[in-house]
């Protein structure tokens, strides 16, 4: 992946005249924005550090899991676009249902962020991937920020980010956020992903159980027929098969499909989650 430097704000070898990637930290000024970015990830992987690096806010950073419980909001501007950035609670999975996992899940589903940055721990890649894969089932507008590369280097662990990007089919940015490494590359990937017009393209998990696979496909096809091109029809089908109350309610309220129509529901879901 090409790196743009934050200092010059210019991309040297790019002929297509792309916008400068200078970062403007907007702190808590989030009233007007062009796009919404969400920050998800396992606890204690440096989400708050990245949040602070992008927004210039000073959310408390501490070395322990479960420190950020409430949703934090900030803003930044890059590539001529103002982003509202939402720091979701750290979770290991979206499959169980503690309140903080529900906040994260409902926001990804109903808030429809333009980009979701999933922060991962290079020392514990496999565990980070559990969450990445689950989020990819909900939205494919994902950037995987592989943080704590400095710790991995110290442990002499090498990670092939290109191989990862190929396997996940989303941009992967290697970072050491505490040292500011990778921030400009992350910005580049975020604005690129926000700009791109997506149709579902990420690799999906398929299930060995034939009956399950068939049930998922049948339901997903019907969901697509009713709600238009859903990026997450298979995921919603699975939740319906599991009998998830929130999702059943959303289907009943007809609030899955059209852009942003679910926003009032997001508010409801978030208010409830609080």
């Amino acid at each position, binding site marked *: 992946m090409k790196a743009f430097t934050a200092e010059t704000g210019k991309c040297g070898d790019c002929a297509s005249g792309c916008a400068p990637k200078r970062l403007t930290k907007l702190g808590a000024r989030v009233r007007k924005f062009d796009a919404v970015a969400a920050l998800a990830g396992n606890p*204690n992987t440096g989400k708050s550090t990245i949040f602070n690096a992008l927004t210039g806010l*000073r959310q*408390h950073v*501490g*070395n*322990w*899991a*479960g*420190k950020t*419980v*409430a949703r934090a909001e900030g803003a930044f501007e890059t590539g001529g676009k103002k982003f509202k950035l939402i720091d979701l*609670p750290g979770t290991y*999975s979206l*499959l169980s249902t*503690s*309140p*903080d996992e529900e906040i994260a899940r409902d926001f990804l589903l109903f808030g429809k962020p333009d980009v979701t940055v999933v922060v991962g721990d290079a*020392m*514990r*890649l*496999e*565990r980070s*991937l*559990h969450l*990445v*894969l*689950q989020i990819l089932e909900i939205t494919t507008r994902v950037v995987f920020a592989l943080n704590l590369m400095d*710790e991995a280097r110290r*442990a*002499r*662990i*090498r*990670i*092939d*980010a290109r*191989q*990862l990007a190929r*396997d*996940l089919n989303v941009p992967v940015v290697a970072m050491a956020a*505490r040292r500011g490494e990778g921030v400009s590359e992350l910005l580049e990937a975020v604005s690129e992903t926000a700009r791109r017009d997506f149709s579902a393209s990420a690799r999906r*998990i398929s*299930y060995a*159980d034939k*009956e*399950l696979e068939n*049930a998922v496909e*049948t*339901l997903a096809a*019907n*969901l697509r*027929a*009713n709600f238009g091109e859903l990026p997450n029809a298979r995921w919603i089908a699975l939740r*319906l*098969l*599991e*009998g998830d109350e929130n999702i*059943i309610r959303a*289907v*009943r309220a*007809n609030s899955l499909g059209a852009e942003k129509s679910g926003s009032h529901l997001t508010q409801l879901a978030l208010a409830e989650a609080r």
Partner: protein
Amino acid sequence: MTNENILEQAAALRGALKPNLHDELTAAVYARASDIAARAVHRPEGESEPESGFDQRLDRVLTSRVWGFPLMVLLLTAVLWLTIAGANVPSALLADFLQGTVYNALHGAAQAAGAPRWLEGFLIDGVYLATAWVVSVMLPPMAIFFPLFTLLEDFGYLPRVAFNLDRLFKKFGAHGKQSLTMMMGYGCNAAGVVSTRIIDSPRERLIAIITNNFSVCNGRFPTLILVGTIFIAAAAPPFLAGFIAALSVVAITILGVFFTLLVSAGLSRTVLKGEASNFSLELPPYRPPQIWQTLYRSVIERTLVVLRRAVLMAAPAGAVIWLVSNVYVGGESAAAQIIAFLNPFGVLIGLNGVILLAYLVAIPANEIVVPTILMLTLNLLAPGAAQNGVMIELEDAKIQELLTGVGGWTLLTGVNLMLFSLLHNPCSTTVLTIWQETRSLKWTAVAALLPVALGVAVCLLTATAARLAGWI
């Protein structure tokens, strides 16, 4: 097909599927993740475990059943001792400057400008003096305590403390995660209450909310440190003074943990009955703290934020104190009447009317308890002293002189003030947060009043014991 049809179809298909659907989904995700990770990660030859040996060895000591608790007490004592020993000189210098030089200059300027006597008193002896006291009493200890505490936190020590306490919490019928929310409470109780969202079970969450107040917060540490220094340490030989002061604050902190467990056990066996749920507590890797960033963060942000809040509260409080001390109703100032009303009860529980009024004034912010006590004592019991510039530059020794000489304080008053500082109602911000989190008037009231009741009971107990033993 309508949406309702889809839901019916889903329900029908659900019946035909295996019952362990959830497990199967999880297994599929795990298999895929392991597959991808295996292709991307290259470990050095011969190493397969990512954990470094150092972390494990350190954890074996810090979370050991034998050494875990003594090391916790030792570290806390060391941090507090450094705070107390280090804050002495800058505190005195600040007091000298703010309550001496600046205070006199302000009075001089006011007189030169011909300001009316009441305005001069209101602004300088009320608003300014309260603010200056908050700064000189609180700034130095905070500027030392917060960075030290933050360094420990950055290093990754707090989760180890939580790990040590986890066993205890389970034994007392509370959620192990409560040890984490309790640690948050040491920063700020309101933040601690919000952090209880990580606890899934409503029953255990309520217990964690109600007991969070027993974590001594940032606003209360300076009070404890000051009272520990001027009363408890005064009873010890000088070379031990700082150490004894630190120990007294550690003792109060441990007593707070004790009450957390006691109240948790009481609640989980009576009104909030239930089994303790299990969870696995994560021990993050130790990380070298970023010294400069930590210093900057904790001094500039944490310290100044707390100080700002204290000053914002102290200025109006100073104005109120000056007014109630100078508004006369039937020949006596309003403050004197309130204090006279509260005093019998205060003395009964080993405190006094001034302290109780100070706690009423300080409901918005615990930070201003000591400055309020000092102002009330000065204004009421030594009238004219402030105006004459006597005993305004309050260093530790002079504060003790004022409180024992003029206020009639004893060692018991000091001890009980420390106890009451641990056991009293949460500040108004925390109470509001509790209401927002529980949406229940009943539980908010319990969380607000239970600690006061405990505080009164404990203080009554020590006061009675002291009287029976003939100490006072």
